[in-house]
């Protein structure tokens, strides 16, 4: 697995995707600041409330962090489908297992790295533009939020990887990444559950349990920013465990689906 991970990181760097992932939050924040300055907001009249809240809102409210965290693995799998690179790449015993696990490992890596990059970028760019934050959290709070954000991003990224492996096609892989990262697939799932509850009221409890275990509620919770740190113990546990369960299930399903897939 480590060999494939090294190969993946090399490919991401050589293709420029790694740089793109690092600069993506810079582009977002830069655009936001530029638009507000161009709109004539005077620097001392426009301020941002909270660094973590801003990052959380942009990262999870707009789906940018789930999208960014899953992008690298989806890009690699999607390009392998298009170029048929898998035929050349899977040349050793247990190659398929290593291939899948390397993508999941990447998901974990970018799930940690992307929120840090976004938080750092959102801290530095407004400062350079002379736009202060009203509230800057202490390190412990920021780290706690980063931890929860990373776990949620990991869940989304692993799910996107599973879907891209099942897609077998570059276009479908990117489409599923977008629908997953923006929460559209889960919204559809919630609508289906709502219909099921209407049709069969007896399954209300099951439906509610399924709803609370989805990734979207966890993303919404973490998207509250510093308020997420004040959740109950049970809610905090769910925010942590549900995405990990999704990541574990996605990994197992991806391994099973890819094991005998015709390439």
């Amino acid at each position: 697995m480590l060999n494939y991970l090294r190969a993946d990181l090399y490919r991401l760097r050589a293709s420029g995707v790694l740089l793109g992932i690092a600069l993506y939050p810079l582009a977002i924040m830069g655009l936001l600041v530029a638009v507000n300055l161009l709109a004539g907001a005077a620097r001392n009249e426009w301020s941002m409330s909270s660094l973590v809240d801003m990052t959380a809102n942009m990262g999870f409210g707009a789906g940018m962090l789930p999208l960014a965290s899953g992008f690298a693995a989806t890009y690699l799998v999607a390009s392998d489908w298009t170029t048929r690179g898998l035929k050349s790449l899977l040349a050793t015993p247990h190659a398929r297992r290593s291939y899948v696990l390397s993508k999941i490992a990447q998901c974990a890596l970018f799930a940690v790295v992307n929120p840090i990059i976004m938080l750092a970028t959102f801290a530095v760019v407004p400062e350079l533009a002379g736009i202060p934050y009203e509230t800057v959290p202490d390190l412990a709070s920021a780290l706690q939020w980063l931890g929860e954000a990373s776990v949620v991003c990991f869940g989304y990224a692993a799910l996107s990887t599973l879907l891209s492996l099942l897609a077998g096609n570059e276009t479908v892989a990117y489409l599923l990444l977008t629908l997953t990262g923006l929460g559209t697939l889960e919204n559809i799932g919630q609508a289906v559950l709502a219909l099921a509850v209407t049709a069969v009221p007896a399954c209300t409890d099951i439906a509610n349990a399924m709803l609370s275990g989805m990734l979207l509620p966890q993303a919404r919770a973490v998207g509250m920013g510093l308020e997420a740190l004040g959740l109950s113990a049970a809610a905090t546990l769910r925010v942590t465990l549900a995405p990990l369960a999704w990541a574990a299930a996605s990994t197992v399903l991806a391994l099973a689906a890819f094991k005998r897939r015709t390439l």
Partner: protein
Amino acid sequence: MYAIETAGLAKSFRGHRVIRDLNLHVSRGDIYGFVGKNGSGKSTTMKLICGLMPATAGEVRVMGQPLAPCEPSPLVGSLIEQPGIYPNLSAFDNLMVKGLALGLVNPRRSAAELLGTVGLSAHAPGASRAREKAKRFSMGMKQRLGLALALIGNPDILLLDEPLNGLDPEGARALRELIVRLNRERGVTVLVSSHILDQLERICTRYGIIAGGHMARELTSDELDAACASYLELTCSEPARALALVTERFPALSLSVLPNDTIRIDGPADQAALGELLMSEGIAVTDLHRAERDAEGFFVDLMGGGEEEHPTTGAELPSDPRHFPRR
């Protein structure tokens, strides 16, 4: 022990049998030409050997070791259909990706050496075209890079599926020479499929002809030469008597009777001596001429047929005496 051996290999797609009871034998050191019509199952067979899809039935062995479904052998390098190149990476970066995935100790050196081996040294680090992306490569360059990708990791066995397709004559010759060099200098066993029979004839030591997903025949290049050697065709007034006379007088010759009572004579036949013999026995000779049979015709007949072939003895179950000499 064969380098590659399949036993009863079968593959079906949605109930449609593409490969059925395929028995293939590639000896170590062979350049094995895998010949068949479009859709006969060549690429499917190669994908099964490379572990790119699971077989429906049967077994694949590489160097005597059975392969688990969808588990490739580390001894095999392959170039199946498209080269599998990342278009936005340079040639060197493409090789580095695979070298790192294989866990090579020094992938940089392996990649640079291979670029020289396949004639892409201008794309090695520090060379003039080192940064050129693979999407700008010609078809020939892509095939060379694909071959380099197959060679990285120093495999003992190389599987090449239609490697000569789309190449100009010079490119085809260069690739052919490279295959022969790898076989002779590094002892690499090569299984190559192609429609271009005259290209295969120049390099192959052994052939397998697949027809309808089943191995029609396996034969060595010497056996192919013998099957395609020139022969005599005799038309006369008493074919049965002529057959008996020639068999008795020239036991080294192989004779067979064609449907129109023409006698085919294979072997070191002296045309003049034969004519003299028959005339002296009062048999009127209508026609006695030397005919040529080319390899293409031989292969095409087999690809359209489907006789069972026992690979170890060379014996076969002839259903049509036109194709096989009498022993």
